[in-house]
Structure formats: structure tokens, C-alpha cells
């Protein structure tokens, strides 16, 4: 089930120095999974590999827990280190790619494609259909979120000088976004790591992972709020009322008749 749920660790669980202070600093939170294939020199590749190993060890320490409460408390305990690793990795790629947003976008897209294929190919077999569906919905939602964040990176937004009130609200939204996006990414990484290393996810832990994945919807909702804050809305078009005719009447009546005969679960 693709649930909308508001469940994130409190903001206190991310060190203040890790919270984004500008739109540009949102980049680590629209993540690059471990599956990206940047063409790097072997030395750099080695560095990136080591960074991935650090993330992997944090994830492994979490997914080995057998109960939902153990899992969540470990996740919260390790979350700062995880976010720090996300930021380092993002900064690293930022330098390597010479701040080329298009190249970064391509890597993120490729990474999301690879994740989608992995879940399609192996997800249901390893995690069952419900958890796989939630993961696929999360990746699908992440794609939408990334598209919106990319809109924010648009020069108009970055060069925009917001009012002091908007700036204050913006900072609050950056922090909320970072929490929601990183929390959902953490849980997605739990599944991808389990899939890659053929580790089991204990049944008691599954609901906690589903809860974590759900926060991707929050990330999307917060990104929409940031868009509203920074990008001037397009003027709403003036819609001309249409003449209501017999056909409209018939269609509406038929929809209502359908409703009378529809067999849905009682509310």
C-alpha cells in the first residue's frame, strides 16, 4: 500500500551543521545511489568505493536488527553519520563533475532507472509484493521530487532574493526536506543493500521500513511548498463557463446512477 504518512525523526536527530542552508545545498538529498557509473580514475573510484562501504556498514548494522523498535532506534542513532556520508559523496561528485548540473541529473536518472529495474527483477522474490510495491512507489515519487528540485536549481530560483519572511520559511523547509528525503533514502538503501548482499529483512522490521519509505511523499510535498515559495506561480488562466447542455445533463445523471449501484466498501 502506498501510504501517505508523516513519520520522521525529529529535527534534533540531524546535526545542525548538516542541515541545508540554501537551495544549492539540497543536492545531497536528491541522492545518488550506490549504482551510479561515473567514469572516474581508479584512485577516485577507490575513494568513492570506500565512502560507499561506510554507508553500507551503517545500513548493515541497522538491517540486522530483528524488531521494528531496535531497527528504528539504530536507524536514528546512525542517521547523522549516514547523512554526513551522503553530503560528502554529493560534494565529491559535485567537484568531479565540475558543478555540471546536467551531468549530475543524468547520473541521478541512471541511478533511479537501475533501482527500478532491480526492484522489478528481484524485489518481489526477496521482499514480497507489498514491500516491493512501496519501494517502487518511493522510487517513482523520488523521480518526481528530483524533477521539482531541479526546477529549484534553475538560476531564477537560486538568484532570486526572497523576502526575510520567505527566507526564514525557506530554511525551515530545507531542514524538513532534508530530513524527509534522507530518511526515505536510508530506508530505500536498506532494501537495496539487502538485495545486493542477499540479506534477509526480518518480518518484524518490514512495517518500520514501509513507514520510512512513506516519508518520500513528505519530501515531495515540501518540495512543492518550496516551489511555491521561490518560483512565481503562473497566472491562472481565465476559464470561460461552458453552456450546460443535454449531453452534460445525461453524463452527470449517468455518473450518479453508477454511484447508486456501485458496490464499494462501506465507509
Amino acid at each position, binding site marked *: *500500500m*502506498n*501510504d*501517505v*504518512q*508523516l513519520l520522521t525523526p525529529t529535527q534534533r536527530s540531524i546535526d545542525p551543521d548538516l542541515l541545508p542552508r540554501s537551495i544549492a545545498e539540497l543536492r545531497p538529498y536528491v541522492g545518488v545511489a550506490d549504482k551510479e557509473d561515473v567514469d572516474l580514475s581508479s584512485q577516485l573510484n577507490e575513494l568513492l568505493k570506500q565512502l560507499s562501504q561506510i554507508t553500507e556498514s551503517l545500513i548493515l548494522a541497522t538491517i540486522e536488527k530483528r524488531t521494528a523498535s531496535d531497527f528504528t532506534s539504530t536507524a536514528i542513532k546512525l542517521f547523522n553519520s549516514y547523512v554526513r556520508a551522503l553530503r560528502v559523496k554529493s560534494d565529491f561528485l559535485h567537484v568531479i563533475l565540475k558543478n555540471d548540473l546536467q551531468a549530475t541529473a543524468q547520473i541521478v536518472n541512471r541511478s533511479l532507472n537501475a533501482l527500478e529495474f532491480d526492484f522489478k527483477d528481484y524485489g518481489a522474490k526477496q521482499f514480497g509484493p*507489498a514491500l516491493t*510495491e512501496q519501494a517502487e*512507489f518511493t522510487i*517513482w*515519487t523520488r523521480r*518526481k521530487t528530483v524533477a521539482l528540485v531541479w526546477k529549484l536549481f534553475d538560476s531564477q530560483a537560486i538568484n532570486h532574493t526572497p523576502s526575510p519572511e520567505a527566507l526564514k520559511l525557506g530554511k525551515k523547509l530545507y531542514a524538513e526536506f532534508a530530513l524527509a528525503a534522507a530518511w526515505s533514502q536510508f530506508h530505500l538503501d536498506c532494501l537495496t543493500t539487502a538485495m545486493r548482499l542477499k540479506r534477509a529483512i526480518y518480518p518484524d522490521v518490514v512495517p518500520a521500513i514501509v513507514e520510512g519509505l512513506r516519508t518520500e*511523499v*513528505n519530501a*515531495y*510535498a515540501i518540495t*512543492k*511548498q518550496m516551489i511555491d515559495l521561490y518560483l512565481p506561480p503562473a497566472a*491562472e488562466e481565465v*476559464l470561460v*463557463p*461552458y453552456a*450546460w447542455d443535454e449531453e*452534460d445533463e445525461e*453524463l*452527470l445523471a449517468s*455518473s*450518479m446512477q*453508477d*454511484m*447508486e449501484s*456501485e458496490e*464499494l*466498501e*462501506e*465507509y
Partner: protein
Amino acid sequence: MLILQGEIYWVRAKDLDIQGSEQKKNRPYVIVSRSSINVLGRNVVGVPLTSVLTAGGGYRVQIPLPLMVPNPVWPTTTWPNGSVRRQLETSIALVDHIRVLDINRLTIPKMGDLSSTAVAGLELALQRLFESPQNRPLPVTPTKTVQ
């Protein structure tokens, strides 16, 4: 009557069923059509809610009660026929049962509103429902503008 996107109304399955006699068929709907379009005609577009949480799956999203804002003036009394007047609770949005509604079937006042997070979730579910096919290329016709 101004019906806004994201508002939740109790919708009567039968016209003039103000007694709530068709209780089983009556249910809350979230209005998903744009507010600016809702003022133009006699119809709005809504997604039905169910409190049967096992009805989830596929495109259906769960909307927890904390992501709804109940209307304080929605009565807590029973319907005139004595049946219980339902209040908002954690629900599944049956996105795949989206339908056109006659605004005369909407019970006033509204039951409440969805929060921005819940609206975003519903928007995602609808996008997923209506997304163009991924695996089947659509036939291409000579360029014509769709009006």
C-alpha cells in the same frame, strides 16, 4: 456554491437522501478537480474514501487522520433517521474510483480539508493512475494540436 480542491464532503448516493437512508452507499469524497473549474458547472470530480484500511494497494493511498483538518462545524449528531453520522478517520483514497459528482449531492457543510502533504500524496497517486503507458508506445498521428 464554492467547492475547493482538497475539501472533503459527505456525498449522498441518492438525490434528496437527506435522511441518510442510503447510508451504506453514502461516503466522503475528496474533491480533486481544480477550484477554478468547479465554479463553472454543476459538477466536480472527487475520489471516494473508505475507512476499510485493508482496501489499500495499487494506486490507493492511505491518508492518516492527522493529515486531515476536520471542519469544526460538521455536526456530531446522528442523521435525522437516527443513523450515526460518520466523522473523518484514517482512510484509503480509492483513487481508481474517481468520479464526476453532482454538486447537489454534496452535504453542506464540508467534513474537512486535506493537508498539503495529503494533497501531494493524492496528486502523486492520481499521476500514477493517469501516467502514459511505459511499456506500450502510443500510436503517432500526423501533428495536430489537441484543443
